[in-house]
């Protein structure tokens, strides 16, 4: 099993109006080739920041990256903006949470998809490109692709727009596709359809996927491995089935307890007491100590480092 992406001790500091915030504080994550890796954690834990750092999309003037991100062995931290742009849309690409705003309202679906395909395969003729676009819309489950191809985004439903985004990602055939909460903005039935689509596409899509979600149910269903992020720190990672069956970190346990077979409305109401500490006010000790039912004196004094707890599994807890 070879590694496609290898993040080592990644630190991201963002300049905010309130001062510099250490949004990612030493995260290590491995994305094996051809696998789907889930990234979970409450909102504000730094998932999107990690994704944007990986793509080189954090604003250079407002962010500071340390550590290492290797894509196929190539170091991306400190790579030139031109190099990063060359990798985006060919080796890696990303789809976003809110399909309502992810497409430009002033251009047709055809125009926006064609520009992505042109970049990936510059040699295609207009007719070939059109055929590819139609085929791809059909593949992602858009009925009447002829008509939809020439639609503007506002003429499509949220679910259909997210299908268009997935079509865009597939046209691009990246080695690494990042999907940042692709179903969170959709209602429950559409969420299930999109999740089903992603599952079906595994057969055709040979690349790796970093699947970011705060729906643990989806992550359990779709991913091979999972990493749990809390307040900019990786608290646990390992094969999804094992992590969910026997969590080793109290935060993972708490997340799973909240999720446990509840439907979405209840899930959101029943969350872990307390709040994710702001990146501006992180002291010493375990980041989760203030909300952890097992926290002891030691947890507030000594920061637990992520360490192997069994084969293929890592946890950052003194008790793991």
């Amino acid at each position: 099993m070879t590694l496609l992406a290898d993040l080592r001790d990644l630190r991201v500091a963002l300049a905010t109006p309130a001062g510099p915030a250490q949004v990612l504080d030493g995260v290590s994550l491995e994305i094996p080739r051809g696998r789907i890796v889930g990234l979970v954690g409450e909102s504000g834990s730094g998932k999107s920041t990690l994704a944007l750092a990986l793509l080189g999309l954090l604003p250079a003037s407002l962010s500071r990256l340390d550590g290492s991100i290797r894509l196929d062995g190539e170091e991306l931290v400190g790579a030139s903006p031109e190099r990063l742009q060359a990798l985006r849309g060919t080796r890696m690409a990303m789809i976003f949470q809110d399909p309502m705003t992810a497409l430009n309202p002033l251009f047709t679906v055809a125009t926006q998809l064609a520009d992505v395909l042109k970049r990936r395969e510059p040699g295609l003729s207009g007719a070939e490109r059109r055929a590819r676009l139609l085929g791809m819309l059909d593949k992602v489950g858009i009925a009447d692709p002829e008509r939809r191809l020439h639609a503007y985004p506002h003429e499509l439903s949220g679910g259909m727009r997210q299908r268009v985004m997935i079509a865009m990602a597939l046209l691009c055939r990246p080695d690494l596709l990042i999907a940042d909460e692709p179903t969170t903005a959709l209602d429950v039935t559409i969420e299930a359809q999109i999740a089903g689509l992603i599952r079906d596409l595994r057969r055709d899509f040979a690349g790796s996927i970093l699947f970011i979600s705060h729906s643990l149910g989806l992550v359990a269903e779709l991913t091979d491995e999972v990493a749990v992020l809390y307040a900019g720190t990786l608290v646990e990672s390992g094969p999804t089935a094992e992590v969910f069956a026997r969590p080793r970190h109290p935060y993972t346990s708490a997340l799973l307890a909240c999720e446990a077979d509840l439907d979405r409305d209840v899930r959101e109401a029943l969350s872990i007491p307390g709040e994710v500490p702001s990146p501006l006010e992180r002291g010493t000790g375990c980041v989760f100590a203030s909300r952890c039912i097992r926290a002891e004196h030691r947890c507030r004094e000594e920061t637990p480092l992520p360490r192997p707890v069994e084969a293929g599994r890592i946890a950052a807890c003194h008790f793991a």
Partner: protein
Amino acid sequence: MSGLSGYILSRLGTTALVVVGALTLLFALTLLVPGDPASVLLGPRATPEVIDDLRRRMGLDLPVWLRLLKFLGQVAQGDLGIDFISGRPILTMVLEVMPYTVTLAFASIGLAVAIGVPLGTYAATHPNTAADQALAVVSVGFIAVPNFVIAIYLLLIFSIWLDWLPVLGTGRPGDFWDQARRLILPAASLAIGWVGYIARLMRSSLLEILNEPYIRTNRAFGLSKAKVVYKYALKGAALPTIAILGLGIGRLLGGAIFAEIIFARPGLGKLIYEAIGTRNYPIVQGGVFVIVLLFVLTNLLVDLVYAWIDPRIRANLGKASS
């Protein structure tokens, strides 16, 4: 498409209302200004009989409402009246000078767009650099300095000291280059304030669009910076500027007057200005009416361009009219 034609119809309706309203106001203006037009026109030595005769010929003896209706009816037929001094139809006089003013206004706006849009785009794509900050100062300076001051300085520098461009007039009829050369300074003096304004507006709207999630999508799929900015961001960022241009052309049609005076060019502004001096109200009415008409038509055009650029507006039009 039926949405668009319905929209054009309803916009034409409101346009007609605006025009009739403007005409009524213009008519009322002649009632409010003190002094009897006939006696003013004829001068202090005219006999009462001559004045009465002219009053009758000008229709000043009729009741006000009848005069308004007659006025509206005539305008509807394209008749703006007769100039009692020269005896020429006012429509002819207005149409004679209108091309000069329209050319001047569009040349100014064209110049302002040609300079302001690239400057604003550069500033937005290089925010907070020294160049951006310098542009901000220069733009605000351009906006703040009155047009006529700029006109006089341009004349001094380019015509008198450097002797690069002709001083005055519109150029020999039929000689395109001579006319174009003589258009440069008046157009530039009107354009400079708009350059600053358009540059500021473009900068802020483009910066806003560049922060939109769909621009992040473009970048996540590796589209080149040029494609992201010039194709995907600029279209939306141009909308506020286009809206301002509609107003700008109207302001320029009215504001062209001082440029026409300083640079000794014929034009609507100059025609109206001189007619006010002699209380020649029919000419004032005719001239202002044509300016209102041009203004209203430009704004109609701007609205159509808006609907053409933004499919969401087209969609709302479809819903509204069906």
